[in-house]
């Protein structure tokens, strides 16, 4: 029905030349790829958006700058290692993200609100839910996109270190094992930070509040935990140090990689968790990730339309 109308109008039109200008409405009979495709599209759009791609030039500056800042120390370490023919890299793969946690925190704070607050603030969310995707698809796509963006941010410098280590002809097996452990660690870190960042910023449609809240959650918890750990160390109650580590995201990651990924702990005095304490750390990390996902689902069930 619809295809024919424009045609009839064309033939009854004033002349042949109008057909060039007015092709009329064309119906779409091609494939409709459905829900999974829509979810993938949202994922790739959000991931690109996390590095400012497909957005204004201004929004590309910060994420790309932070990526450079993340990689610069790695490049310098590699250069030094190659030049001095060192026997080992100046840092462990697992330690790298802990050293640069402030940069990671800044990235989460800037991009998590961008990923979710924007849709809430401009009320684009109802448009998404008027399409084949469901709440879970939206949450998963956004969560996966920010996690991937964080993984790119944290794994790229590790890759630089690894390539550099191989160029410096360091021990291959040793380096590969360290690199793999580092990747697992930053993958877990990406999931954890993305979850916390998204939950905090999904609460508010205001981007500024989101940024401030994410920074506050990450730095205040770390500040409090490291202060308490230092006090515990001073008072020689070293048994408390691993347990205190449960209360901030970055110390949790530190605890997990100390217990399971052969990292040396950054806790005061190196009193990282081991055995049962490590299991608790891992359980808490996984619990927070699951909890963040659950909270996001709850949030969007209400925010839909």
């Amino acid at each position, binding site marked *: *029905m*619809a*295809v024919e*109308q*424009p045609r009839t*109008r064309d033939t009854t039109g004033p002349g042949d030349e109008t057909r060039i200008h007015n092709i*009329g*409405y*064309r*119906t*779409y009979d*091609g*494939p*409709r*790829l*459905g*829900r999974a*495709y*829509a979810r993938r*599209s*949202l994922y790739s*759009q959000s991931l690109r958006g996390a590095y400012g791609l*497909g*957005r*204004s030039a201004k*929004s590309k500056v910060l994420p790309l700058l932070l990526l450079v800042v993340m990689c610069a120390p790695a490049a310098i370490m590699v250069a030094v290692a190659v030049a001095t023919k060192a026997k080992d890299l100046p840092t462990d793969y697992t330690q790298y993200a802990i050293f640069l946690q402030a940069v990671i925190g800044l990235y989460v704070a800037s991009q998590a609100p961008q990923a979710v607050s*924007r*849709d809430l603030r*401009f*009320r*684009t969310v*109802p*448009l*998404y*839910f*008027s*399409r*084949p*995707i*469901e709440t879970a698809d939206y949450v998963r796509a956004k969560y996966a996109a920010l996690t991937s963006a964080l993984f790119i941010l944290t794994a790229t410098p590790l890759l630089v270190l690894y390539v550099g280590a191989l160029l410096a002809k360091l021990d291959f097996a040793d380096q590969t094992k360290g690199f793999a452990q580092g990747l697992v660690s930053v993958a877990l870190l990406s999931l954890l930070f993305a979850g916390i960042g998204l939950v905090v910023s999904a609460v508010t449609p205001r981007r500024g509040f989101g940024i401030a809240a994410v920074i506050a959650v990450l730095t205040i918890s770390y500040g409090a935990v490291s202060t308490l750990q230092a006090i515990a160390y001073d008072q020689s109650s070293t048994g408390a140090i691993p347990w205190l580590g449960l209360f901030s995201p970055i110390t949790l990651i530190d605890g997990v990689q100390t217990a399971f990924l052969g990292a040396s702990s950054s806790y005061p005095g190196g009193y990282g968790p081991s055995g049962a304490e490590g299991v608790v750390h891992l359980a808490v990390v996984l619990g927070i990730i699951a909890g963040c996902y659950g909270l996001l689902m709850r949030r969007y069930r209400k925010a*839909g*339309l």
Partner: protein
Amino acid sequence: MIATESLSKRFPKVTALDRLSVDVGPGVTGLVGANGAGKSTLIKILLGLSPATEGRAEVLGLDVATKGGAIRERVGYMPEHDCLPPDVSATEFVVHMARMSGLPPAAARERTADTLRHVGLYEERYRPIGGYSTGMKQRVKLAQALVHDPKLVFLDEPTNGLDPVGRDEMLGLIRRIHTDFGISVLVTSHLLGELERTCDHVVVIDGGKLLRSSSTTDFTQITTTLAIEVTDTDEHPDGTRAVREALRARGVDTHDGSGLPGAGHVLLLTAEGEETYDLVRDVVTDLGLGLVRMEQRRHRIAEVFRGDSDENSGTSGESGTDGGTRGNGADRDGDGERKEAVGHGG
């Protein structure tokens, strides 16, 4: 296209929809109701986004409770509120929305260019949406609802915030969505007069109940009300009364529109057709009076409610929807053939 049966939606404190049974066929259908009448709630249920408390509804022959995803793939939705991010261009935004509807990348770009042209956005489509006028934003919102070539599109208050010219353009565009694009439309408004000009069929709801469902020709033929106002002369010190008596002599009843602004100076009468206008003109001229104005009264929801509650006082709350014809509205497309209001307790 759409069929609901005793559809109810209750929130803890309010009943948004109350046993609503309505059948909507292809064409342009207006959904009229005051703010809070349940229009948006109905759209949410029809999109399969909000479960009904009781009753059932079908869109394009698909049950909203179980086939929400399939419905949303073939239906477009233009929300009432702003929904556009300001920092991207219309093209980028609509392409993204097309892909969210399941269109492959190449098709999404092609359909976006087509659709934006059809809604009347040209060079400006490459600029960020933040700089657009309200009218242009409404067009982008419409484009994102049409980009995946739906069978049916829900437009929630599309003329909101537009100036009179913009309003007319939007209404013209809505008409074209059906006549040129072959897409059926369900458009909501709180202004009945606006929809009368655009729609084939109008459904009026109030307080979640169906007040009236009929083709617009019924509306205009039965309920067009003329308001006339005349001058007084020395010969006829009360011109209004003179006209009233003269019209009564010719068998046309008038009333004074008490309770309406300008009561006492305005005469209201029901226009049966073109001849009523001529009759009024002749009567006024014969009396030697000046005609200050003669205009079509805008129908208001209250008027429909008054007229309709009389009509329906005998009907019980039982639904008149025939299960057998539900879902194949195509064969009941004729004007004036639609079922009259059903389903609200008198």
